[in-house]
């Protein structure tokens, strides 16, 4: 009987050679009824293929004896394992002269066999499936990095439409280019180059509006892994005013707002739409998108609504203080 760690080949019910795997693994397979006890097995040093149960019935190998002359194997070595068997032949592997069950392939030889030695077919399959699965996980990492801003948009839409707003404007600029510039400290910082996604909602009863602009600043996986998914957001509140002079006043504010080339977070600016008579107050913010969107793309709508509510409330106050309610 081979040692517990001896690599052993065995034949499945279709006669296909399996293994090698440690003898104790083959024993476990039989014990768990994965393969029958009559399974043919072979290992380096065995006289030929033989049934598992016969090998099991044979006495355990004696401790390594002192070197003694080894009897020469007989050409038609019949396997006699029970009782006091003659010394086992030292045949290296089954040959044409050795009895080989029908369908049995030759014992492992060559580079491929060496490559796969010590690994069962099941283990090889498992490794392969693991590699492919991991590849898809990495692919999904990239997909997530390019989707998180749009998942956030979906969350914003759901949160506001849930509250009774209707979406009246939806524009996405695709992947708006982000230009990086080197600051005085030598670090590269993203510069907002234009609008990313733009949403506009209207409250049916009051015709007041909420605007959201979002631009993903860290769409590549490496940057996102280090600093997280950040986005520049401009969130605004707008309402209709009935007096033309108030819209004119807002237009003057808009001109002043346009003086700000690169707004810092917390900068409130004003905007006016002369044709439909709306005035807006809006604020620049930096958001961490991964606070709202999990890796499985589920969105924390409550947190999103809470944050939107706080900004809309403040912007509404700005508008009403300047232009009346």
């Amino acid at each position: 009987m081979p040692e517990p760690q001896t690599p052993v080949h065995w034949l499945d019910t279709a006669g296909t050679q399996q293994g090698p795997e440690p003898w104790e693994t083959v024993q476990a397979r039989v014990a768990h009824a994965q393969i029958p006890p009559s399974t043919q097995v072979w290992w380096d040093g065995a006289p030929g293929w033989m049934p598992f149960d016969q090998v099991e019935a044979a006495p355990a190998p004696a401790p390594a004896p002192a070197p003694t002359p080894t009897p020469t194997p007989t050409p038609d070595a019949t396997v006699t394992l029970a009782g006091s068997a003659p010394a086992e032949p030292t045949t290296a592997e089954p040959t044409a002269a050795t009895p080989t069950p029908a369908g049995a392939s030759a014992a492992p030889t060559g580079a491929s066999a060496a490559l796969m030695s010590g690994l069962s077919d099941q283990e090889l399959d498992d490794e392969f499936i693991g590699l492919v699965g991991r590849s898809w996980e990495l692919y999904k990492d990239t997909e997530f990095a390019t989707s998180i801003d749009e998942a956030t948009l979906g969350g914003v839409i759901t949160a506001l439409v849930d509250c009774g707003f209707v979406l009246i404007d939806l524009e996405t600029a695709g992947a708006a280019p982000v230009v990086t510039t080197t600051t005085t400290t030598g670090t590269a910082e993203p510069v907002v180059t234009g609008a990313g996604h733009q949403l506009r909602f209207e409250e049916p009863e009051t015709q007041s509006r909420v605007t959201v602009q979002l631009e993903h600043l860290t769409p590549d996986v490496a940057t996102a892994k280090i600093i997280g998914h950040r986005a520049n957001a401009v969130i605004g509140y707008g309402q209709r005013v009935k007096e033309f002079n108030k819209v004119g006043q807002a237009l003057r504010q808009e001109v002043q707002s346009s003086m700000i080339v690169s707004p810092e977070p917390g900068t409130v600016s004003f905007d006016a739409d002369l044709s439909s008579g709306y005035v807006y107050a809006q604020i620049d913010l930096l958001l961490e998108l991964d606070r709202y969107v999990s890796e499985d793309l589920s969105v924390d709508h409550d947190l999103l609504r809470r944050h939107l509510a706080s900004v809309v409330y403040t912007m509404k106050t700005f508008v009403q203080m300047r232009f009346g309610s």
Partner: protein
Amino acid sequence: MGLFNSMANYAHKSELRESKDEIVCGEIIRGLSHQGWRPFRIVAHSDRQQMGFKVPGDPVLSAAYLVVDRRSGSGALTQAMGSKTSIGFLAEMRNKVSDPDDLATMWKTDLANLFKLPVAGEVRINHQLNTVNAKTYHLVDLDQYVQGHSVSAEPLVGWIVGQFDALREQLRPLKK
């Protein structure tokens, strides 16, 4: 002041009329989100909106895409004709591994596609190595679902889910 108000009112009404498809998109995103679908792709142009959703736990689909494409323009013409809109459905299935046998299947599918127009509910299957898509289009009148601010999105969302159920069944035999 009266003239300004009248002009502003007209502009506001016009904006709302042109926003019909966006209103519907907003309701679709909300409705499907409440069904557990997760929006991950939103691409919008002036009259064409594309939305992509992940469907967690779906045994076949890796993603579901919708394209809302307004056909009848805006303004007075739209008012007269209604709001005819093409809604495209694309169900995406991904196999983790593709092999040469799949290439043979792709040829067969491409050949069959030569004579298929995926309109009015007919389904066209398209192989792209690991990805297999099934798509179809329907022409709908958005006025059925939107009147001004008033939206009845529940039947629309139910109908959309039904369309994807049908596409899923077309893809199921190709799932490895």
